[in-house]
């Protein structure tokens, strides 16, 4: 299995704060990796650097063998890198299936000439079929015509995942996909991820570690901009450095 995405000494500063500090991070094809760490440890900044929303101050990012460090974010999506956001990013002024139309534009555009594309009506039948299928996959087919602002947060998250899957990712970067969800909704998302993980590589940032322990093959722990520990979930969660950054130094006279 070849390396799909990798970084070399990736560094990003915001004024005096080093948000990501010489990080070397790799994911191979087909791998499901988790990234955990306390708030402010640099996890989302790492995602922003990988997906091109920030450009690094130092270091490099490689994807499928290419140096993409300076590549714009929309071209990275075209290469197969898809990300979601901590706060669900679906478009509240559009209906569920219109959101999916937007997710499919990239592929439709290749099929049509320039003039045709710009003024193409959004409600064409062919778009409807593709979107219906995508909504079916996440159980939202009955809510296709509902305006996104009226969907529950859990449904919005599923819609965002449906959009991400429509983009035909080779690598899926999920930033805290479970935040704000009820237990029932979390179970739905985890079930979906178990189903699709065989199709591509996935990296998940999460705080709800217990929920993703069965899903991921490898955990990386970040603290203060660095990766302090990496390995299988059981190894990592036993590691004293990891326990320290979450729960502080163990008291000498406390029993474990």
């Amino acid at each position, binding site marked *: 299995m070849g390396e799909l995405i990798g970084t070399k000494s990736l560094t990003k500063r915001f004024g005096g704060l080093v948000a990501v500090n010489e990080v070397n991070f790799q994911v191979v094809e087909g791998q499901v990796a988790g990234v955990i760490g306390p708030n402010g440890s640099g996890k989302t900044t790492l995602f922003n650097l990988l997906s091109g929303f920030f450009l690094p101050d130092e270091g490099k990012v490689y994807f499928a063998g290419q140096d993409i460090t300076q590549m714009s*974010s929309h071209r990275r999506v075209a290469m197969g890198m898809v990300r979601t956001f901590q706060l669900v*990013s679906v478009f509240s002024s559009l209906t569920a299936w219109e959101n999916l139309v937007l997710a499919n534009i*990239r592929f439709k555009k290749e099929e049509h000439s320039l003039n045709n594309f710009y003024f193409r009506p959004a409600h064409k039948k062919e778009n409807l079929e593709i979107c219906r299928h995508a909504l079916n996959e996440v159980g939202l087919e009955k809510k296709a015509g509902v305006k996104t602002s009226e969907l529950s947060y859990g449904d919005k998250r599923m819609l965002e995942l449906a959009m991400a899957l429509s983009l035909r990712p080779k690598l899926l970067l999920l930033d805290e996909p479970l935040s704000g969800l009820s237990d029932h909704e979390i179970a739905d998302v985890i079930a979906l991820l178990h189903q699709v993980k065989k199709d591509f590589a996935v990296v998940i940032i999460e705080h709800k570690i217990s929920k993703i322990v069965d899903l991921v093959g490898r955990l990386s722990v970040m603290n203060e901009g660095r990766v302090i520990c990496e390995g299988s979930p059981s190894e990592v969660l036993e590691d004293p450095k990891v326990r320290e950054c979450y729960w502080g130094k163990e008291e000498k006279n406390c029993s474990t």
Partner: protein
Amino acid sequence: MLYTIFYGFSIGAILYFVSIGLSLTFGTMRVVNFAHTLTYSIGVYVLITFIPWLQGNFIPAAMIAILAVVPISYLIERFIIRRLYGESLDYTFIATFAVTLIGVDTIKMIWGVNPLPFSPPMSTYIDFWGMTFPLYRIIIFGIAIALFLGLELFFRKTIVGKIVVAALDDKDGVRSLGINVDKYFSIMFMLGSALAALGGVLYAPISAVQPYMGLSILLLAFAVVIVGGMGNLRGTFISAFALGMVMALTARYWSQGAETMVFIVMAIVLCFRPIDV
């Protein structure tokens, strides 16, 4: 009184043409463009230059004027506006206001400082309810309605329209779908600038043509966009006509106060508007 209301509609129409671009630019790019009405004034001066060459034919001269501002707006967007994404208001103001000042002085260099006379392309009057209304102003209003309907259709039905609506909501969300949002923003910017030129070209015959004309309407356009909501296109339509009516009604009783009243209304709206988080 009926005349006053009628004039209010035609002023509102002009305000609408000019404010659309401003609202779109702020809504999508989050850049407050103090150079927006440069294309408004340049459009007028190009129109006046071409009219004698075209034997006084207004419509072709108007079209040339509007097309002439497109490359100018492209240059402004490409080299100035694009650099201002995410910048503080201070830098944005300095940069775009500088463009306006350069533009005004260029106009003065080419066309001179004195106001230019320009008469309406038609002096037909329509009789209605025993009163006569200038056809020209009716046409202006008609164009505004047609534009509003056209934009509604564009944003609701076409794919590009959907992209812009989504980008007004969440720009990063659209980027993460692999869509080059910046390209669409450029197109919207040029459209907005062309519409400002349209406003200028239509208003020129019934207003004063002088190098600073862009500046006075710029402030009014800002008032319209602030009252209507930045990036809210329907709101811009309503507030343009509402403020146009305010101007017309104020002018009837206190002619110097027409523009002042617009800003008073804007201030009142700002005081009472619930703050959007």
